[in-house]
């Protein structure tokens, strides 16, 4: 197990390096730079002055020199400061990652709470009305775009019912209860959609397992249906579910720009997006580094989970 973890951990290094290079090149491939975005439009400014600003920001240097500078600093744990706000990027990431993490966890909790029972019941009563009800849920959940669901939830729970504030964020450390309360609507918007996808996987995995010999054996030896489903079938059905949920959770941690935008959550996705819009190169580099690291580590975690769920999986 330990050698496996170590090997996987070492493999993340070239992965993160690759991502950093690609992002660096892509950011410079899009037109405009931090100076054009700084000056804004309609400003009476000469080309010479623009060139001088580029020199001040250090973006007139050859691209490999710029990358070398960034990498050198990053290896020493220094992600630099934003070209536009002068704020420390590591500091801003530390501020934003918890918000994204909280949102992701709450969405995941909502998704699993809904998806596991619905999927199981749908499989258990295959071809009967609970199954059809489950399919309807899946179909709607997969078809509704997140931002639309978000706005509908705002209109229903804030404007019509007045139960929850429409948007706005309170840091967890400041007031945990209020923070959770404000996170309910965005977590629902993401969670319901994630639940739909997971329900589908859960149902089909469960169906497959329920046809297996060992389930028949379990039934034959007189176990209750409840026991058969929960102990014998569920554990084996969970493997594909864990894979999918792991991937989904990884991308949730990458920030969900649109939901963060609708509910004004200071998440990592919006941080990266603003960096892109302002051509604030170090911000984008830092944000993407953290996002990809989160993704890689969630996948690693999923691999470890396999071993826990499925005794046949052993890492040597």
């Amino acid at each position, binding site marked *: 197990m330990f050698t496996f973890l170590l090997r996987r951990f070492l493999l993340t290094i070239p992965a993160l390096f690759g991502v950093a290079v690609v992002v660096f090149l892509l950011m410079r491939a899009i037109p405009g730079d931090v100076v054009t975005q700084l000056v804004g*439009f309609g400003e009476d400014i000469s080309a010479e002055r623009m060139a001088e600003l580029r020199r001040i920001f250090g973006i007139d240097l050859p691209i490999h020199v710029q990358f070398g500078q960034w990498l050198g600093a990053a290896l020493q744990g220094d992600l630099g400061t934003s070209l536009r706000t*002068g704020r420390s990027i590591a500091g801003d990431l530390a501020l934003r990652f918890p918000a994204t993490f909280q949102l992701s966890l709450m969405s995941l909790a909502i998704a699993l709470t809904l998806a596991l029972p619905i999927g199981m019941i749908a499989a258990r009563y295959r071809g009967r009305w609970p199954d059809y009800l489950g399919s309807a849920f899946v179909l709607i959940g997969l078809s509704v775009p997140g931002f639309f669901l978000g706005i509908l939830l705002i209109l229903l729970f804030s404007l019509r019912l007045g139960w929850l504030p*429409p948007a*706005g964020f309170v840091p967890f450390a400041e007031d945990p209860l209020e923070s959770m309360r404000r996170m309910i609507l965005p977590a629902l918007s993401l969670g319901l959609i994630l639940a739909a996808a997971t329900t589908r996987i859960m149902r089909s995995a469960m169906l497959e397992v329920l046809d297996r010999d060992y389930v028949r054996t379990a039934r034959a030896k007189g176990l209750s249906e409840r026991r058969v489903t929960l102990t014998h079938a569920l554990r084996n059905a969970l493997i594909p579910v864990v894979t999918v949920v792991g991937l989904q959770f990884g991308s949730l941690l990458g920030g969900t720009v649109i939901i963060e935008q609708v509910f004004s959550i200071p998440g990592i996705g919006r941080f990266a997006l603003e960096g892109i819009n302002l051509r604030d190169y170090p911000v984008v580099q830092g944000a993407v580094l953290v996002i990809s690291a989160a993704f890689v580590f969630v996948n690693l975690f999923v691999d470890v989970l396999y071993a826990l769920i499925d005794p046949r999986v052993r890492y040597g």
Partner: protein
Amino acid sequence: MRRLATFILTLAFGLALAQPQHGGVLRVGMQTDPVGLDPHLTNATATKNMLENTYDTLVMFNASLEIVPGLAASWEASQDLLQWTFRVRDATFHDGAPVTAYDVKYSIERIKDPATASPRSGDFAVVERIDVLDDHTVVFTLSEPFTPLLSFLAMSMNVIVPQHVVEEHGDLQHVVVGSGPFRFVEYIPQTRLVLERFDDYWGRDADGGALPYLDGITFAFYPDPTARTTAILTGNVDWIEYVPAVDVLTLQADPSVEVVGGLAANYRSLMFNAAVEPFDDYRVRQAFAYAIDKQQVVDLALFGTGGVVATGTTIPAGNFYAIESSPFEVRDLEQARTLLTEAGYPDGFEFDLYITSTYDFLRDPAEIIQANLAEIGVTANIVLEDWSIYLPTFYARDYAATILGFSGQTDPDAFLHTPFFSTSGGNWFNFADDQLDELLSAGRREPDPEVRRDIYLEAQERILELSPMVFLFHSAQYSAQRPEVEGYEHFPNTSYLGFRTTWLQR
């Protein structure tokens, strides 16, 4: 009897409440975060709007865009307009230090200094020297007569900052020390920015009472328009900026909200690249101006509430310098076809109309213009691009015709010289005309408003004749507030200085 007593009490309270009350924190819903906190280092409207009440400028605009005293209690210009003397009033920075003439000199020189990397270093290009005569007197020496100087000094990002604070911290990105009515408390990105009342603020209200009335302002960020309008409808905030044009009528009908605002200083036009055929021919540009139905653009693309039809050039009607009549006021397809024929395009032509997909008020007019132009045989192919791609391409002048606008002008010089002077950095249109250049330079040298107006009217006639743009509309800007918010004034230059006199009725 009891009812009558209640009525009288209510009436009495009503009368008492007409007087501004002190106290209370205004909760404001903003669209976006500030882009950095140092006002000298950015052009972001959001930074300006949240910090312009923490800092002061030397002179200020009032809500009618007239220049009024700011930190300078008075000022005078020499006969030749080359020496401007400002008398700095007794004012205190939030850290207790006095505001001096040295801070004024330091602030303007800081904006000018290339090493500061201010996007507005050009604002004071004509300022040759700044001399401090004593703690309260500062003299600006200009290299040429430049009437717009006061407008640049009043621009609420060209603020006076304390020299000792900048020197201690390097810049003002993490520390905000001004002399304005509110002092900075904290900023948590995408969460909130908090200001509290500064007790030693120099400003007084009309009755000589202390300003500001509010104990503080808390800005929260709602980038999504639905979330923002819901926040005010549910009372989560007291005031929001940027009410979408489509929601204006809905909110106006709601008794729990008041919609404030209207015309803002800006213009939105169909802009031509004068170096690209056939738009190098002014007759083609004029033909477009005759063919496009501006009222239809406002009614359909802006829901009738998002803007006001442009009746002259870039300067909105009602402005002292605006030209009030234009040959293009009435749509004239016959005239448009004649002009096209004269220019050598009797059967029309085809061109790419380069548009950003990011802003609806720039995107949606394109389809109406496309339909309008089809009537004179011209085929406009709409090419849509995201703002982040669009803007740099526009800067590179890699377009034939586009729809764009510029905002926040306060001086006629900014409305006319910036886009149309041949060598101006804001002329992205490859447009040049000697006669116009001469008029625009003359306007900069003329101190007498009446004479200056005549010069600019002549300049605008010339602009209409050459039609470097088809002037479509001026955007309106609306904010909304709860009924208990009083005293807020709408400034047409996207400025929230109105918070200085805002109070809460409780």
